[in-house]
């Protein structure tokens, strides 16, 4: 192998090795001020897969998303997101919706939504077209010219999600996207998310402390434990998502699954 083709062929090898996995996390550890926050995390998320991370607060769930997105750098291990192994390459190539909406108060809904496209150098006209194309399904077409402070919390979260998904990255990270909302709004947004978001081509990682939300949205639930943060269980969600959310949450399978996950979470509380 000649030296000038080495980089290209090694990239090629990785995409072959990981086959369908869009997101590959292997042996990742992270320290904060010498205290271990995360220890040897291994996660692999395939194309079209929706994975939820549940765990008590302080177990490092959000830290893991910050590592995947490239906001933080890991102490050890390797993260590959859609072929990007370097932290600097993942920044801007992984969609990340944070817990807070983080909308810029001086920009309209449309201007906030197209921020990611704007930073990539997409023209205003082109990015506005992309915003308008999705605004309808996001329920935002009537408020595109409104300012963020005129919107309800639920609407603001929709804008934040639209901003995150518009750059159309293959890996999408959601950090408690509905955590700050009231129960009714949260439930309706969860149902809406299932319908509106085409995740068939994406690898999605959702962080939540709401077990029902995890079951409702994800194909696979990873249970985390704190100090140091680690994954202690992995549960496949094999229930029929065709039902609507309220019917689903009444079903026997749903209740059993929820019980199993809660059991896992409370058991580690007792250990701690």
């Amino acid at each position, binding site marked *: 192998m000649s030296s000038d083709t080495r980089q290209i062929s090694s990239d090629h090898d990785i995409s072959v090795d990981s086959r369908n996995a869009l997101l590959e996390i292997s042996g990742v550890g992270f320290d904060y001020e010498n205290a271990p926050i995360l220890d040897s995390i291994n996660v692999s998320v395939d194309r079209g897969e929706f994975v939820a991370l549940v765990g008590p607060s302080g177990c490092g769930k959000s830290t893991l998303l910050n590592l995947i997105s490239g*906001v933080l750098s890991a102490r050890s291990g390797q993260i590959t997101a859609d072929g990007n192994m370097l932290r600097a390459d993942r*920044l*801007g190539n992984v969609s990340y919706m944070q817990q807070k909406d*983080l909308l*810029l108060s*001086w920009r309209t809904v449309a201007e906030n939504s197209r921020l990611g496209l704007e*930073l*990539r150098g997409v023209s205003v006209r082109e990015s506005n077209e992309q915003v308008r194309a999705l605004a309808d399904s996001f329920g935002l077409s009537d408020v595109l010219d409104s300012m963020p402070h005129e919107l309800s919390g639920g609407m603001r979260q929709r804008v934040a999600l639209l901003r995150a998904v518009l*750059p159309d990255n293959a890996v999408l990270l959601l950090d408690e996207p509905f955590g700050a909302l009231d129960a009714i709004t949260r439930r309706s947004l969860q149902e809406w998310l299932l319908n509106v978001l085409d995740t068939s081509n994406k690898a999605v990682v959702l962080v939540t402390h709401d077990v029902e939300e995890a079951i409702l949205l994800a194909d696979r639930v990873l249970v985390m434990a704190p100090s140091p943060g680690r994954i202690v269980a992995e549960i496949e969600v094999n229930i029929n998502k065709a039902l609507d959310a309220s019917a689903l949450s009444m079903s026997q399978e749903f209740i059993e699954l929820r019980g199993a996950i809660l059991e896992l979470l409370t058991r580690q509380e007792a250990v701690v």
Partner: protein
Amino acid sequence: MITSTSLRALIVNWLPAIVVTVLLIVMWEVLVDVLDVQRWLLPAPSVIIAEMFDSFGFLMGNTRITMFEILVGFSVSIMLAVSLASGIVWSRTIERTIYPLIIASQTIPIITLAPLLIIWVGTDMMSKVIVIVLFTFFPIVISLVSGLRSVDKEMVDMLRTLGASPWQTFTKLMIPSALPSFFAGLKVASVVSVIGAVIGEWFGSSSGLGWLMKIAGGQFQTARVFAAIVVLSILAMALFAAVVAVEKWSLRKYPPTANRVIRLGES
């Protein structure tokens, strides 16, 4: 066009200040008259106003010169302060080298520096501009640096995940977020710039309101000194009002996250 409601708001806003000012002036007039204070010691307001009319042309000619110095000095100061603050926020090395110098520059008693400046750069406008800059750049730099620094860390991370370069983060997030602090510093500097111009003129000039006050004071033309003070106050207030107008305009365009006016006395 002033509508009746906006006129009412204007009156309500300014009435307290106007009433207090008028009361003070009346008290001054009465006291000078009753206590029979000498005109060269403390002229009555009526005498000062008469002096303003008598030497109107002379006053205005010198006002124009001082005003021009202020506008040039203030503009230079803003440009200097914006580049210094940006450099400080941008690079740790610049911060470590420049910040101590900026603070040291403020420990120099500028009044003692003014005569030296005359020796170094002469008695033309340059020396006044330098004094104004020395007086005004500090509040702008300090407030702008703290404004640029006060930006929400999570907002910065959000922009990074969208692929923002440091420059994009600076222009699209930090500058708009820093506007309220920037204008707070600018308001302080606008008033101080008038003082800077007078001090600059005091120490070596043949024109301007500072020079006029020095000459008139030496000749016991106290009414003329006060007339110049009145004009200087009007200049300072006009400059302040101009800054407030630009502030209002820019904050309408870039509203900060929390823009509620808090008054602890009116819960």
